[in-house]
């Protein structure tokens, strides 16, 4: 068994994409970093997610985070010197009625003001982008489309970050659990793990659906709830479309992967929060029914697998980032509500600048845990899965 480091500048809890990206960036800025993962890297939400990257959001904060994240993804292979599997085939978001259309117009205007290449499509134009769709079956009166949205391989990306982090001196420990976090005078002092104690003044809670449990250790209540989410994947078929098709109304999202599989998800009716892992027939039935309504040609394609993972869901579907006065040095990086992968490049950049240089931009303030004290938080409505 490898012996654990006795001291670190920063201890990161959680070996998903956010933890590994943070480890890399902090290590690059000469911080002594230890990352703790209770299972193996990508074993939680990162390795189970749809891994879409989308810039079309309803709140300005999310849109900005996503746009800047895509810019980072675009140059990440070069920076890390490893493949990340970026595919920019766009996101096509179905618009079903006039109310949808008004929201879409509002979103597109805001997104265009941020410099995003995004447009509203007619039903005919939808078929030019994804010919296998049945616009009538989808009950779509139009769509919004952004060609630079897409997909990134979550395993390749996280492993690339992890390798780069180690190269810069970070220590990553798999199969290591956090049993306690010691504090003194409202400051973090040390982290106690199954492999020993690490002295540190800074801990990052990037434990995904288990962040609430980690935060409970130090007595800070997170409003996050874990929700089981399901995905199915089909056998490989010939390339038919490169775009991710989604609908906020039906909750469906699906795309064709580079290897040819169709992969997608949808929420099941009456979803309840909790640490549930069993796959359901309700999901596979509901998903197959909706998917074949959107693209009838797929009815002969075989499903080979379905699996589950968690969304770590907050009250406004936006992440919780940074620390509060209650405990200095305990930094939240969680509550991504199903969008942790796509927002990770920018979120971890902001947190790195905060930890290393003390930079505290407006966006970090707006995503602080303390926002829930105020009852006027703006909810992100552009959510699927």
């Amino acid at each position, binding site marked *: 068994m490898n012996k654990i480091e006795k001291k670190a500048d920063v201890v990161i809890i959680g070996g998903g994409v956010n933890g590994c990206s943070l480890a890399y960036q902090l290590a690059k800025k000469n911080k002594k970093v230890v990352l703790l993962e209770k299972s*193996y*890297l*990508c*074993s939680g939400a990162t*390795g189970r997610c749809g891994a879409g990257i989308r810039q079309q959001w309803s709140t300005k904060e999310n849109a900005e985070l996503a746009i800047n994240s895509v810019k980072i993804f675009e140059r990440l292979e070069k920076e890390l010197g490893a493949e990340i599997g970026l595919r920019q085939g766009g996101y096509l978001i179905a618009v079903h009625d006039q109310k949808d259309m008004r929201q879409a117009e509002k979103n597109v205007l805001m997104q265009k003001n941020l410099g995003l290449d995004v447009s509203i499509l007619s039903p005919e134009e939808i078929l030019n982008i994804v010919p296998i769709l049945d616009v009538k079956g989808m009950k779509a009166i139009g769509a919004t489309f952004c060609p630079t949205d897409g997909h990134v391989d979550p*395993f390749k990306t996280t*492993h690339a970050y992890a390798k780069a982090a180690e190269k810069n001196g970070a220590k990553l420990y798999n199969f290591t659990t956090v049993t306690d976090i010691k504090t003194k005078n409202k400051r973090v002092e040390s982290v106690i793990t199954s492999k020993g104690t690490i002295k540190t003044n800074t801990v990052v809670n990037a434990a995904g659906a288990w962040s609430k449990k980690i935060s409970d250790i130090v007595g800070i209540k997170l409003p996050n709830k874990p929700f089981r989410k399901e995905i199915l994947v*089909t*056998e490989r078929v010939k390339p038919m479309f490169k775009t991710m098709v989604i609908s906020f109304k039906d909750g469906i999202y699906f795309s064709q992967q580079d290897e040819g599989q169709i992969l997608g998800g949808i929420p099941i009716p009456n979803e309840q929060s909790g640490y549930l892992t069993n*796959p359901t027939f309700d999901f*596979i*039935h509901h998903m*197959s*029914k909706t*998917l*074949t309504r959107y693209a009838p040609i*797929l*009815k*002969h*394609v*075989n*499903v*080979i*697998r*379905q*699996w589950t993972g968690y969304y770590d869901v907050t009250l406004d579907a936006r992440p919780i980032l940074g620390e509060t006065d209650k405990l200095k040095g305990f930094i939240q990086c969680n509550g991504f509500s199903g969008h942790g992968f796509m927002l990770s490049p920018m979120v971890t950049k902001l947190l790195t600048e905060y930890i290393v240089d003390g930079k505290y931009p407006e966006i970090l303030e707006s995503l602080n845990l303390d926002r829930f004290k105020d009852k006027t938080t703006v909810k992100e409505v552009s959510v699927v899965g």
Partner: protein
Amino acid sequence: MADKTLICRCEDLTQKEIEQAIDDGYSTLDELKCRLRLGMGPCQGRSCISLARRVLCQKTGKTQDEIILPTSRPPVVPVSLGTLASDKK
């Protein structure tokens, strides 16, 4: 021999590629699955997982019982989207 011995036929993985990944530090079947797509093709690991487990035993000195198998995922056999979408009982 080993460089041409296929372990996972669906995803076209050789014994050598699996041994290389184990040398790179991926020490469980789940990690090998994430890294190499081992067992993620149409057979869902029926033919390859037990072979990969044997390679893992040889490389790590663990016994077969000590190696945790990846979770089996439904459906047991491939089923078409059309069949799964049907409401007929």
